[in-house]
């Protein structure tokens, strides 16, 4: 099954990259705030049971994909 893991910096963790992009958007006249930059990881995971695939993706987040000091993830099984 296709799995999409979206990794974001936790709220409260400074995101200088997001801030720079926000300033860039302001430069073009766009009204935006709280721009945050994250990472999107897509993969194919064998299996047909969405709950089981979701659990495996969660284990991957805990082992490698996410650093809980600074990041949080949301998992979508498609």
């Amino acid at each position: 099954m296709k799995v999409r893991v979206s990794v974001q910096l936790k709220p409260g963790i400074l995101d200088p990259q997001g801030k720079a992009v926000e300033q860039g958007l302001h430069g073009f006249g766009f009204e935006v705030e709280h721009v945050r930059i994250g990472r999107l990881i897509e993969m194919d995971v064998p299996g047909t049971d969405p709950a089981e695939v979701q659990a495996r993706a969660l284990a991957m987040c805990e082992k490698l994909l996410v650093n809980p000091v600074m990041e949080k993830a949301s998992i979508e099984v498609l």
Partner: protein
Amino acid sequence: MRVAVPVFPGSNCDHDALHACGTVMGWDTIPVWHQETHLPPNTDLVFVPGGFSYGDYLRCGAIAALAPIMADIKRHADNGGLVLGVCNGFQILCEAHLLPGALLRNESLRFIHRDVHLRVERADLPFTRAMAAGAVFQVPIAHAEGNFTLDPAELIDLEARGGVAFRYCSAAGGIGEDHVPNGAMNGIAGIVSAGGNVLGMMPHPERAVDPVLGPTGGLGVFRSLAEALGVA
């Protein structure tokens, strides 16, 4: 005195570490490829060098933390063996959970390379015992991700247990945001494990040990290790 320097694809300060420990200090210093599963016998110190292991893919140090040699480095640390991680080496030790916290992108978003002053916060460690508490020394930094971050409650615990080994400071030893190059919480430049045997720092003491190449502010760390291991 035997030093192991693990080498990952993308390490680029491994030769600085080998030069400082091998040529300058005269220690038996052995590079160890990351695919090895064992450190050389009787390793006293593991020096995890700086660089861009695995191209900084995913997160700095995240992939190197999974390398085969890391299991034996953890065993060495668990047995009280000394581990020094510098720059990317510090990031690797955090990702391997040998040290708490994480190193985020510098506040300025820029790669910063310049000399900084550090204040010794703990002078009772194997890495600092030849220096005085409160002493100031000058060493270079060269990193884009050195902004030390920790959960606020854990930061309080880290400070309370004396986990901060070095703090960025002025030439006179003054502490404050103005002297922190990268946005690191509490101006933290280096931390030590609860056991006092694993130290991670962003600045490069190994790049400031050879008078041929410039100032030698980093020697204090190496003289301390020599003392601690009885080769001084």
